[in-house]
């Protein structure tokens, strides 16, 4: 490798690590699902089971949440890349439907420990 090959490789690695540090750093916020559409940003607790209708320019993208996992169930787009992206379960994972302007991501890092029972 020549000198500037190494420079560009290091620059690429620094950019990757820097962006990862910026957007994937764990936070104390509870795990939640964010659904971004043209109409705005909607937030849901990750442990809720429901179908979310996200409306975009092509129609409605159906986002299915069940058992702390999320996938796109139905999409009006042509290529169905969002369906092919499969299921996401962890903070930092995402799904996107580019033609319908729907972006789904899991954020937060805390598992938000809950008390099942108290004993005195």
């Amino acid at each position, binding site marked *: 490798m020549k000198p500037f090959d190494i420079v*560009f*490789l290091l620059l690429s690695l620094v950019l990757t690590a820097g*962006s*990862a540090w910026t957007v*994937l750093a764990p936070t104390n916020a509870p795990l939640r699902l964010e659904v971004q559409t043209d109409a705005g940003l909607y937030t849901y607790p990750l442990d809720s089971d429901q179908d979310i209708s996200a409306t975009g320019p092509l129609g409605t993208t159906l986002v299915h949440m069940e058992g702390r996992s999320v996938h796109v169930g139905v999409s009006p787009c042509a290529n169905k*890349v969002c369906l092919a992206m499969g299921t996401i379960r962890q903070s930092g994972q*995402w799904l996107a439907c580019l033609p319908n302007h729907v972006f789904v991501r899991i954020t937060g890092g805390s598992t938000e420990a809950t008390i099942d029972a108290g004993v005195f």
Partner: protein
Amino acid sequence: MPASSKKVAPARLPLVAFFGALSLFFATLEYLFPTPPWFRLGLANLPLLLALDFFTLPELLLLLLLKVVGQGIVNGTLASQAFLLSSSGSLASFVVMYAVFRLIPKGWVSLVGLSLAGSMASNAVQVGLSMVLIFGPASGIIAPWFLGLGTLSGLGIGWGAEILKRHSRWLRRVKLGQSS
């Protein structure tokens, strides 16, 4: 190399078209490799990388146009926002690769460095556009994935292009203007 010419010489058009066809072939070949559905390896850039050495700027721009439109047809994304992202990424990548190729002496950078620089520019522009024009700031979360995988693919494509450049007798003949 006729670097100063401002037009594409008619005699050179078949060679540019052939490299455009090679780009399309590589764009189709990508489907053989298992990748995340939202990620393109960028194999179609390989002919563009190789052509930097012996095409003039107008010829390179024509090749870029053939590559971008051809990829849009192969992927079925022509006239969509995916095409806008892809073509912007390709243009950014080309501008950076061409600038690096022209400004940095050849002994200091190989096709590996050019490919890495182009990949970085392409992915940064695509992530930026998706944040600004399409999905909003939340989509910044895709940046590490695009940049990380882009680094790997840029490294691989640059390495492959460098091997072809060193060992292909056909390329050597093309460079000398004796295309068969």
